[in-house]
């Protein structure tokens, strides 16, 4: 579904070149289950951003469903993000003034769906993550675990083929974190959504079928279980 070949990403920060990614080869297949591990600064978040079309590689080729991103305009890339990818962030990134149902419906705004239809889909998605009783709550009225589930619902409402989560449990206590991981596993098992998670926690990573480790912008190891996502 997404294929990275020799992908590098170089940032310029105050005139200093930072090589965040250095020739990474990685493929995410439909229905994949992948954890990207590594210490902070190893480039794992940058890689996740590239896999989700949030960013473009400096060199190398990146293909979405066979299409080279360098051939896609910014707006076409926005459409890819809207249609194919769902993002979950460590800091949730919910709109503070907007109730849960509005936050979840946000991606549908950019599909041009009307209010009633957005609400209908947002409600059913919130129910599927167990938050049917929190529709009108604002983020500040929700616990951290609930906020992250709202964010997951927002990522799912477009029915994406791939869910990308950047340290989804990083701001949560272990119980809420487990709930979020259970939810991701369930989505993978039941809906066949490809799930890619970035984490520095081996315990979290162990719940994914494939695991790759990064250091200094390179992939250093890859392991793969034969079975499904462990519970």
């Amino acid at each position, binding site marked *: 579904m997404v294929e990275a070949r020799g992908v590098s990403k170089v940032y310029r920060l105050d005139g200093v070149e930072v090589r965040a990614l250095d020739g990474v080869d990685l493929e995410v297949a439909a229905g994949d289950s992948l954890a990207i591990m590594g210490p902070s600064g190893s480039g794992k978040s940058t890689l996740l951003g590239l896999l989700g079309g*949030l960013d473009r590689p400096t060199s190398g080729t990146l293909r979405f469903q066979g299409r080279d991103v360098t051939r896609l305009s910014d707006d076409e890339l*926005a*459409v890819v993000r809207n249609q194919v990818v769902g*993002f979950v962030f460590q800091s949730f*990134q919910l709109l503070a003034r907007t109730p849960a149902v509005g936050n979840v419906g946000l991606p549908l*705004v*950019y599909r041009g769906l009307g209010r009633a239809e957005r609400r209908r889909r947002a409600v059913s998605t919130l129910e599927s993550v167990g938050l049917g009783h929190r529709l009108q709550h604002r983020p500040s009225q929700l616990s951290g675990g609930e906020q992250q589930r709202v964010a997951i619902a927002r990522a799912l409402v*477009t029915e994406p083929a791939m869910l990308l989560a950047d340290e989804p449990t990083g701001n949560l206590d272990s119980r809420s974190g487990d709930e979020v991981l259970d939810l991701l596993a369930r989505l993978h098992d039941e809906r066949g959504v490809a799930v890619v998670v970035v984490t520095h926690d081996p315990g979290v990573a162990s719940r994914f079928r494939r695991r790759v480790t990064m250091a200094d912008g390179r992939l250093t190891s890859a392991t793969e279980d034969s079975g499904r996502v462990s519970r």
Partner: protein
Amino acid sequence: MRLAEAARVAWEALRANKLRSGLTMLGVVIGVASVVLLVAIGTGARDEVTSGVESLGSNILFVAPGNLSFGSTPALSRLGLDDVRRVGDAVGDPRRVATTIASGEIARVGARRTNVNVNGTNETIPLVFDRTLSRGAFFTAADVETRRRVAVLGADPAETLFPDRDPVGKSVTVGGVRFRVVGVMSRVGTAFGVARDAEVFIPVTAAQRLFGVSRVDGIAVKAPSTGEVDEEQRIIREVVARAHPEQEYQVLTQRDILGVVGRILGILTLVLASIAGISLLVGGVGVMNIMLVSVSERTREIGLRKAVGARTRDVLRQFLLEAVALTVSGGVVGILLGIGGAALVGRFSPVPAAITGWSVALAFGVSVAVGVFFGVYPARQAARMQPVAALRYE
């Protein structure tokens, strides 16, 4: 994103910061209100002057010395009673020709006194200017010929000097000379806050002696019909030019006068509106400032919207609409204030004020334009953000 959706998001963003939005709007409100109000006053002034000139009658031609243009020094008239006669002969009917020499004087009856505008005229005033008398009769050609000291009072001095008596037949002292009242003019009302009834008519010959001059200020001719105005203008111009080759004279129709007055008031209105427009500009800068703050505050929101599929134009439209919503709400409030202000000015001051559709439409259009103009830059800042960097922004 649908336009209605973008408008709703913009409106909610403004409501989330009510005080800030209100204060930002205030700049636009003040600018728009003052443009609407000042244009209303300018228009009102022009309407009043126009109707004042029109009330003199549409067939009137005026002979006056010099060059009627804004800023030129008024020249002293060298017209005399000979010229009045020449013009009368040229147009073939002396009854259609009036002349005047005017000066401010004090009129007195016993202990009562009042300031009046003394008009030395010939007997043709009622006919030429369509004026009627409420009492008595206007003085005659013979009164003018024999320089008789008779006077026709305007409605105001008649009331002030003779509060409970019929003035006709009584005497009145004007500029220290006694005149016998023969008539009282009907009331004509005020124009542009100036009372036009504070006048006293006396024979032009008597006035020349009273003022110690032998000239007249000007000559007015009433053409028999509107169609003959241009032809008479040509005839009179020729006669006056032949009689006074040494000095330039203007023969003006009412249209000419309205043209000049209209131009002057038009320029004045434009200048006033431009000054008010500057405050609108300042208001626009305030909008731009607050939009830049808003964009920077919402960097993460912009990053998120882009991450979930907002295209460049979606973000651009959202923030542009927010700026336009600010200025348009300010514009609507400003227009209402301007209309209210004009109503108050018209009611409680002598300055007339007339709201015109075009000034309201213009004010509305300008507030939209200010929003677009000052909103584009902040909106582009927002639209150009890179999602990864925007999401990490602290």
